[in-house]
């Protein structure tokens, strides 16, 4: 039945809405839906061919309704595809605003998914190295550039900073991942894994958001 694949895609989108991370891009499913649209379009062309552009719907109702079904099915598939991609781009924009390193994050998810896939046997995507499609990666990069350009207008305000006022100027942090050397007002510190520091919150806020550091309360 036409439109069934589209429904599957939208169900994926629905699941995505309730997840914190982004599940792998359904390359196969998207391809199948677009193929269905192409097949439908070909059917329409074949049906209309003998009429040479002089088709009168009231004369041949059966064909008219077949065309209608094909047309509505194509529109439906289009809506499913758009809704699926929009759900994902919304999610990606949210991640960019939260300062998550999306490319880094997707690589990590694939590793996680690979581990769980072994036990559950769920095959997802085509085994590429990222849960984003190439187009989505491009989108994230360009959206990130846009956001950076937008933020550049007000250098003294951090638009993506936390809305919570800090309780203390200095905090204890633990390093979860090697982040190299950073410059602060009080000199340079080298962030090596598993070490602990007492630093100014403003200096490391970015790194906490990106998951390099963990705040200790």
């Amino acid at each position: 039945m036409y439109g069934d694949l589209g429904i599957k895609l939208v169900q994926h989108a629905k699941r995505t809405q309730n997840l914190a991370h982004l599940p792998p891009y359904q390359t196969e499913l998207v391809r199948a839906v677009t193929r269905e649209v192409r097949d439908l379009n070909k059917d329409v062309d074949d049906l209309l061919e003998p009429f040479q552009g002089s088709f009168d719907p009231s004369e041949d109702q059966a064909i008219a309704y077949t065309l209608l079904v094909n047309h509505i099915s194509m529109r439906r598939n289009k809506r499913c595809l758009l809704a699926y991609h929009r759900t994902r781009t919304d999610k990606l924009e949210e991640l960019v605003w939260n300062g998550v390193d999306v490319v880094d994050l997707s690589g990590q998810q694939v590793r996680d998914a690979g581990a769980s896939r072994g036990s559950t046997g769920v095959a997802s995507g085509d085994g590429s190295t990222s849960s984003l499609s190439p187009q989505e990666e491009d989108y994230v990069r360009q959206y990130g550039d846009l956001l950076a350009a937008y933020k550049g207008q007000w250098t003294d305000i951090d638009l993506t900073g936390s809305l919570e006022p800090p309780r203390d100027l200095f905090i204890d942090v633990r390093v979860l991942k090697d982040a190299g050397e950073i410059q602060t007002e009080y000199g340079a510190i080298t962030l090596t894994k598993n070490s602990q520091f007492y630093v100014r919150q403003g200096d490391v806020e970015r790194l906490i958001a990106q998951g390099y550091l963990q705040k200790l309360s």
Partner: protein
Amino acid sequence: MSYYDVDAILTDGEKVPCRFELDVPYLGHLDNSSGLKAGTRLNLPLWLAEMFALASAGQDASPPITLSLPPCLSEQVLAALKADPRAVPLRDQSAYFYGVAVRMLDLFDEKELSAILRNTFVVRAADVGLHARKAEETGLGGQGEEFLRGLDEWERRLFRRGHEGVKGAKEWTDNVKKS
């Protein structure tokens, strides 16, 4: 209802029973036959059935299919809802019960149906609100859990909002007390 609304799209995917009023030889794939005959009964998704029921080729031609109410809005279900709206697990009828019902009411002029549904929603919404408030304290369990499992998508959203509201208010009062 937005074009990109995932829930709206899934609601449109729910099936409704239809009856074809004329032969369409090219649409055999809809019921896996070599061609549709007049009088064939078929379950079509709402997005297709709606356009089809409203379409008519030519001036005085009648629509090619007749729609009827889906099983989730059948006599039995409505009778049960009239008796006690809280006792019916709507999700078993359809995950998008209200969504489908609203779409059907656009197509059918059923005063009684809309009255029953309105009453159902109001009565159940009160219970949903009650459970959303109490979910925090008592945890889920017993009869409440069974009721919550029967919520359709609208009611689930209502429950989530109510729950978040209670939680947010509690967090706020705790913060005020602390500082």
